């Protein structure tokens, strides 16, 4: 067991002139303030990576810059799953007594720090350099392939996917930090620019600048009582060409491990924070995790099931699709929002009586899966 004693999140979107270390520092300062801890209290540091500032030792670069002298520090990389993998690592470091207060932080000026082509090409490198990338494949293309097969097998239409984009935008409209807040309709998603069909522009998350951080601690430092009680991972492939299936990924086994370690069942979950790089990603994960029946994620969404006042509030900050995606920080915003919900600080987005959350992230092309169970202690 470990406590999430504080969280920090910048707005996502454009932060011109702010670099990786600036955005990491902004988020870290906010998390420290939230946890009511000082720099000297931090004895562990876990970072991810930044595509605009590649470095062999990002954790110590940040520690030096921010003014930390931790007894434990390094960076890890699991693509989009990095944020939750860092939380999982920090949780286990706390449990094993390696550190008392671990700062987990990420930030990147992915939007304004590079050209759009550069961002697309950097991300496409998760594909195979000899067998996939030379074909002009991009991240949306890999997910477009998955979408075509998954929709073919389970009978989703493009409207079903579009419902989830509409939902994320509706949620983002209630969060002042979200990159895109103007409401959209299913028809607007269906009519948006084709990218890698069946995926269109509004089925894809944006590229953003932003930063996120949290403190994972052995002891409580304030009135918050939110703790990590279960974790799990599963890694089935790297390249989509080598995936054993395009309809069954590692999400179910990852979440099963997390639930078992927490001693809970899927029916106990009353808040969901699920990776949503594309509408198809969110659709597949919701259905494979058992949060929606196969083929029904879009229908449930249209019925208000995932609204902040619905049966299972989901990504109430707007997710990657509308709050934004700045790389490692992208999914960390899901955890920050979970903390806001479980501590009753989500304002107009506040869900009622949330106690137990399932968080799930994926990296690559549904390649790496990380699940967390987070609860509000009684």
């Amino acid at each position: 067991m470990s406590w999430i004693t504080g969280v920090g999140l910048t707005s996502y979107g454009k932060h011109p002139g702010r670099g990786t270390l600036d955005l990491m520092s902004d988020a870290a300062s906010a998390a420290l303030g939230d946890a009511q801890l000082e720099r000297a209290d931090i004895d562990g540091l876990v970072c991810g990576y930044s595509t605009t500032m590649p470095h062999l030792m990002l954790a110590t670069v940040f520690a030096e810059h921010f003014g930390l002298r931790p007894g434990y520090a390094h960076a890890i990389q699991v693509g989009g799953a990095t944020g939750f993998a860092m939380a999982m690592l920090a949780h286990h470091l706390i449990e094993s007594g390696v550190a008392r207060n671990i700062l987990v932080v990420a930030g990147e000026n992915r939007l304004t720090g590079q050209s759009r082509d550069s961002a697309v090409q950097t991300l496409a490198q998760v594909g195979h350099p000899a067998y996939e990338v030379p074909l002009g494949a991009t991240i949306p293309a890999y997910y477009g392939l998955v979408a075509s097969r998954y929709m073919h097998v389970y009978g989703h239409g493009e409207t079903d996917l579009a419902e989830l984009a509409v939902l994320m935008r509706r949620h983002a409209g209630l969060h002042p930090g979200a990159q895109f807040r103007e409401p959209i309709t299913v028809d607007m998603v269906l009519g948006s620019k084709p990218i890698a069909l069946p995926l269109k522009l509004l089925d894809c998350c944006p590229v953003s600048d932003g930063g996120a951080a949290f403190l994972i601690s052995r002891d409580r430092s304030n009135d918050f009582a939110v703790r990590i009680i279960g974790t799990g991972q599963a890694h089935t492939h790297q390249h989509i060409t080598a995936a054993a299936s395009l309809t069954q990924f590692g999400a179910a086994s990852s979440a099963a491990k997390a639930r078992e370690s927490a001693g809970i069942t899927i029916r106990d979950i009353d808040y969901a924070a699920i990776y949503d790089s594309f509408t198809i990603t969110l659709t597949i994960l919701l259905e494979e995790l058992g949060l929606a029946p196969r083929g029904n994620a879009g229908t449930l969404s249209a019925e208000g099931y995932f609204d902040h006042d619905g049966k299972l509030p989901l990504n109430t900050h707007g997710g990657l699709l509308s709050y934004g995606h700045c790389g490692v920080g992208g999914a960390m915003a899901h955890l920050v929002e979970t903390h806001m919900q479980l501590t009753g600080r989500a304002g107009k987005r506040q869900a009622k009586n949330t106690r137990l959350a399932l968080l799930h992230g994926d990296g690559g092309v549904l390649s790496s899966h990380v699940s967390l169970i987070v609860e509000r202690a009684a």
Partner: protein
Amino acid sequence: MTAECEDWTRGGAGIAYQNCVSCQAVWYFQREFCPVCGAGDPVIRQASRAGTVHARTRVTRAPNEELRAHTPYLIVLVDAEEGFRLMAHGDPTLEIGDRVHARFVDLAGRKIPYFEPADGRR
């Protein structure tokens, strides 16, 4: 056998795959051992270029200027009849489940496999 196989990822006009002599596993990405049982010296074989469309996406946003001239293009995952899966380009009319056969076309200075309906080839 290894020396004669045409392999588009090495400049040839063919599709090569590997086969374990010990456990008979079949796979696409080349390496020096079997990823299933670990046995060494897998055989490299020439594929027939025939298969079935498993997934498809029509790409309109290319990753760079050179490829932008080719948009839109259809990227497919094809289940080769030998039992491995590969990524390639394909005819825009292809649908999941279609039986297909590959020829080779030039894309940005290299030969790549391009799948067409199997019956339309003859």
